[in-house]
Every structure is written in structure tokens, then in C-alpha cells.
């Protein structure tokens, strides 16, 4: 007996919420970025669950795309965080405060 669609969706929703709240709550750029990755991967879980529910491979195809996009985003994102760190010696987003009124 495999779990019903609902339980996958619930898990995916919980993980997404943890990620979404984490981004707001965290002050460390790397931590925020990890939360974003958590959000993307929880969506992947939804896609796979729906894909299985409908017996349609489009959902799995979407997951491939999301995974490669997430990798590219990780590469660029960590690069940006590192340049920020080099100039600021900190990855705390509260230090990113020059641009304000």
C-alpha cells in the first residue's frame, strides 16, 4: 500500500513552508540560499507525486529542468555571495544596507 497523493502534497507543502519561512527568518546569506534550495526541492516532490497520480511524465521532465536550473543558480549564487564576502568579510544580509533611503 503506497501513501496517497495527499500525504506527498502535505509533505511537500510543509517543506516549502519551512523553506519560505527560513528565507525570511535567516540572516545568513548561505542559510537563506539553502532554504531556497529546500523550496525548489519540495516543489520537485509535488511534481513527482502529481506525475505519478496522472501517469504522465511531464511532471518528471519538469523536475529535470528544475534540478539543472537549481544547480546553475547554486553556482551563480555562491559566486555572488563570495564576491560580497570578499568586500565585506561577512555573509550577513543585515550588512547589505548601503542602498537605502
Amino acid at each position: 500500500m503506497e501513501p496517497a497523493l495527499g500525504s506527498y502534497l502535505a509533505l511537500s507543502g510543509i517543506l516549502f513552508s519551512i523553506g519560505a519561512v527560513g528565507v525570511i527568518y535567516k540572516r545568513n546569506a548561505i542559510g537563506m540560499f539553502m532554504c531556497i534550495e529546500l523550496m525548489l526541492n519540495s516543489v520537485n516532490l509535488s511534481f513527482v507525486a502529481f506525475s505519478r497520480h496522472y501517469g504522465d511524465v511531464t511532471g518528471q521532465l519538469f523536475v529535470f529542468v528544475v534540478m539543472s536550473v537549481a544547480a546553475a543558480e547554486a553556482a551563480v549564487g555562491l559566486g555572488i555571495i563570495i564576491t560580497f564576502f570578499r568586500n565585506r568579510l561577512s555573509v550577513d544580509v543585515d550588512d547589505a544596507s548601503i542602498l537605502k533611503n
Partner: protein
Amino acid sequence: MTEFSLLDYAPVLVMFLVAIGFAASQILVAQLVGPRKRTATKLMPYECGKDPVGSARDRFSVKFYMVAVAFLLFDLEILFVIPFAVAFKSLLAAEQSGTVYYGTIAFVTMMFFLGTVVVGLLYEWKKGAFDWSIQARAEAIAEAAELKRKGGVFSRFRKAA
């Protein structure tokens, strides 16, 4: 459900053997062919490039990040190759029975994709992303020459080399 037979898992065993064989052969070849320049850094206990003694809260070189990102990106390419490899046989079969050349299209597309990946690799290479450090290499060579000249603490290793 068909009957369980251990023989069905034979390919997994073969896979394990190949993996072990590959690892062993790499170590062996490195031992036989690799150049030996003994420096203090190289004789340290191996800990993935970090100092084995000292604070663990240390920052480590940005070069690790470069390697990790290159690995991540090229590793993901397999994500697109595997579905192609799985579907290719049936696409070829469809091509033989029908009028649409799905097999050829898939093949050309995949070659194009791999070509793009190779271009990305060449770009990284040209940009020097795989060059650990020209400076560090020069230092290592100089240090090895120095040690060789002096004999010093590492002289007992020289016999083995």
C-alpha cells in the same frame, strides 16, 4: 511477482567489481607512473586539502568552491543523457516502422547538447578554472628541489622513491 533469484542481481555484483577494479587500477597506475616531488604539504596526512592540525573553523580556499561548482554542473549533464539513453532504442524502433525520424532527431539533439557541454568545459579550461594555482605549483617545485638538495627530514623517504 516473479520468483526471487539471486542471479538477477549479478549485474550489480559486476558493477561492484568494476568499481573496485577501477579504483585499484588508478592507485596502481599513479604509483607506477606518477612523478614524485616530496614537499612538506604532500607528506602531510591526507585530509582533502585542509591542514590536519589546527582549528576546524578555518576558512578554506575559494578554489574548493570552483572545483565543487564545476563538478556540480558537469555532473548534472547526466540527468539529460540517461533519459535519452533509455528511450533511444524505442525511438530507433519507431523510426524503422514509421516515417518520422525520431531516432535521428534524438541523436542529433543529444550530440548538440553534448557539444555544448564540451564547449562549456573548454571555456572553463581556457579561463583557468582547473588550474589549481600557478603560483602554488611553482612554490612546490622550488620546495621539492630545496629538500632534495638539503636531504633534511625527508631524506629517509628518498630510498623508497
